[in-house]
């Protein structure tokens, strides 16, 4: 399992003939992503690398290919329109890689996409990858390996750094999502945490935040209330001066709000593991996975035997169903705590 994307993902590339679009389309195809079409207005009817059909519009592309996902590489002035076109054409997962989309454009795009029932990831993001299955965007495939850690981040290369270290330590990933560095983005930390919590494959989450805004604080409150899986967090920008945009449009301390200190405090309050350095993720995740196994392992077996005895006595159920039923009950109970 995974979140948002897997082998069923069929992808259109908007801006497939551009410099970035064509390079990364090649990379995605090599990784095994099912790229079923591309869009470049005016180049409809042609083919990318003699294989992938190109269309003039998203509506044409969706009608002809039945694609469920799109990735956007079009230049900033046209990116907002490209996102809305995709949502209007019925695409349910829109991944916008483009950096430099004006924030006021996003104030119109965000409610439009919501009303169409689509999920937008980005803009100004590296996309997502479900290792071994599919990648949408620009995350280098070779640094990832299939596994059970969910990764969510506002950054690109910092994510690569952490994922690379996880991979080397044998901690594979279920899905890695880059939600982007802009002040207004389509998918936030909570959206991803919710999905990781619901994903049976994911056992723990690594989360990389940065200065600016309050997304991490809200995520921490969510984790405290709703997450049963351990989450380890990191905040970049502890040495950033206030009032300056640190590369990402959204990475700015406004007045006294959005500092690394307040975000780290929120993480600590939520009982999360806090990585002081990128390399601390490995140890903190390993420790949490170990301690999680121990205490839950005992009551789980007890409960299972209890439940099995009960249900056996009550219902005289068949041996095959006995096992399945109590396990789900235990899982539900564990969640409530």
């Amino acid at each position, binding site marked *: 399992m995974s979140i948002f994307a897997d082998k069923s993902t069929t992808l259109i590339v908007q801006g497939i003939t551009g410099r970035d679009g064509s390079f990364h389309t090649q990379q995605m195809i090599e990784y095994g992503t099912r790229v079923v079409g591309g869009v470049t207005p005016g180049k409809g009817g042609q083919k990318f690398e003699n294989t992938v059909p190109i269309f003039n519009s998203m509506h044409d592309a969706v009608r002809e290919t039945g694609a469920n996902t799109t990735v956007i590489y079009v230049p900033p002035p046209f990116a907002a329109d490209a996102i809305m076109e995709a949502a209007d054409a019925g695409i349910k997962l829109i991944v916008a890689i483009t950096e*430099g989309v004006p924030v006021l454009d996003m*104030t119109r795009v965000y*409610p439009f996409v919501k009303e169409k029932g689509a999920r937008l990831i980005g803009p100004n993001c590296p996309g997502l990858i479900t290792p071994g299955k599919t990648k949408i965007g620009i995350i280098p495939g070779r640094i990832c390996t299939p596994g059970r850690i969910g990764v969510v981040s506002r950054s690109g*290369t910092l994510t690569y750094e952490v994922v*690379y270290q996880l991979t080397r330590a044998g901690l594979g990933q279920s899905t890695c999502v880059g939600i982007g560095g802009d002040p207004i983005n389509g998918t936030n930390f909570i959206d991803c945490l919710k999905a990781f919590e619901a994903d049976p494959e994911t056992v723990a989450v690594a989360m990389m935040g940065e200065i600016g805004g309050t997304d991490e604080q809200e995520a921490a409150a969510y984790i405290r209330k709703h997450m049963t899986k351990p989450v380890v967090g990191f905040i*970049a920008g502890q040495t950033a001066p206030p009032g300056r945009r*640190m*590369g990402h449009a959204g990475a700015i301390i406004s007045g006294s709000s959005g500092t690394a200190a307040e975000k780290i405090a929120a993480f600590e309050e939520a009982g999360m593991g806090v990585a002081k350095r990128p390399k601390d993720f490995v140890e903190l995740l390993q420790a949490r996975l170990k301690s999680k196994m121990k205490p839950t392992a005992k009551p789980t077996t007890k409960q299972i035997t209890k439940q099995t005895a009960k249900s056996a006595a009550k219902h005289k159920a068949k041996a095959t169903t006995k096992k399945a039923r109590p396990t789900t009950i235990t899982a539900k109970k564990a969640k409530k705590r």
Partner: protein
Amino acid sequence: MNIHEYQAKELLRAEGIPIPAGDVATTPDEAEAIARKIGGPVVVKAQVHAGGRGKAGGVKLAKDAQEARERATNILGMQIKGLTVHKVLVTAAADIATEAYVGIIVDRAAKKPVFMVSPAGGIDIEEVAAKTPDKIMKLPVDTRYGLTPYQASQLGFFLYRDVKQVRAAAKIMQQLYSAFMKAGCSLAEINPLVVTPQGEVIALDAKMSIDDNELDRLPHLAKLRDETAEEPSEVQARNANLTFIKLDGNVGCCVNGAGLAMATMDLVKFYGGEPANFLDIGGSSNPEKVVNALRIITSDSSVRAILFNIFGGITRTDDVANGIVTATKQNPLKVPIVIRLTGTNEEIAVKILKENGFSAMTDMDEAVKKAVQLATGGKAA
């Protein structure tokens, strides 16, 4: 991008917002001439991108043109929060009965522009928000519909009782919103919006920040950038398409990607050093960018060691290596350099560096420790 008060006022005046007459001066002569033209008492205001100009002595009242000249002489060239004053705004003085605050910011949580208005104007709005939050009205605007007349009037009624003033304020709200949208702002503020003893509602100060991502499609606003009001190294970096922010430390950092660049700075601090800068060479690799980056870092005399931290995904590490070799051939380094690179074409990069007498590291923490050690002369880490 921040623009000056006089520039913001021009944009607001173009929308029809009532603002006292005024003009910008770069010399005492010009200031005197403007004051004479206005006639009567004027205010001379330093034009710098910093708050607290009044407290720093950068805003002075002058009763006539002669005094305006004297005030301008004092204020021009003055330092406010490390910034030199190159321009003053000379504007007609106004009598004030009441002061209010009106602002629009793009609110990240609401994902909309949000109006903030308060009858407690003239002071720091963050302070008002912290101490007396009931004195602030916040109103999000759906940009697909714009600020509706009923919303504008709600804002007006929050500020004033007199219906005439409410209507005048509501009109100003519409005009401010229009200016905000047209200029692609992330912030627009009138502080204070005043009522004069005669009952007129006028804007006495204005502040606007334009979203950098808008500048490509708004070239007439991109021209408003005042490079004399910025750190020269930052101007140089921007012209080379690099994101650079000067800091106070001595470890010069060159990193690809904003998140990793911040994490690298933090790690420098973690190991007992101080970063000299934030520098992101961006995603796509290009040896020329590395050459420019090194030129900017080495022009800072406080830099004692240079640290490269490159994670090659899209960025090809061999491009970075070539850039380092080219740059150091043109301008031999006077300070030690620590290079950490890993990822795409790492073997080629290491080979290029070795052939040219550099060594490369692959572990981020080890590289940062070494750079800090070199910068502090072995005292820290």
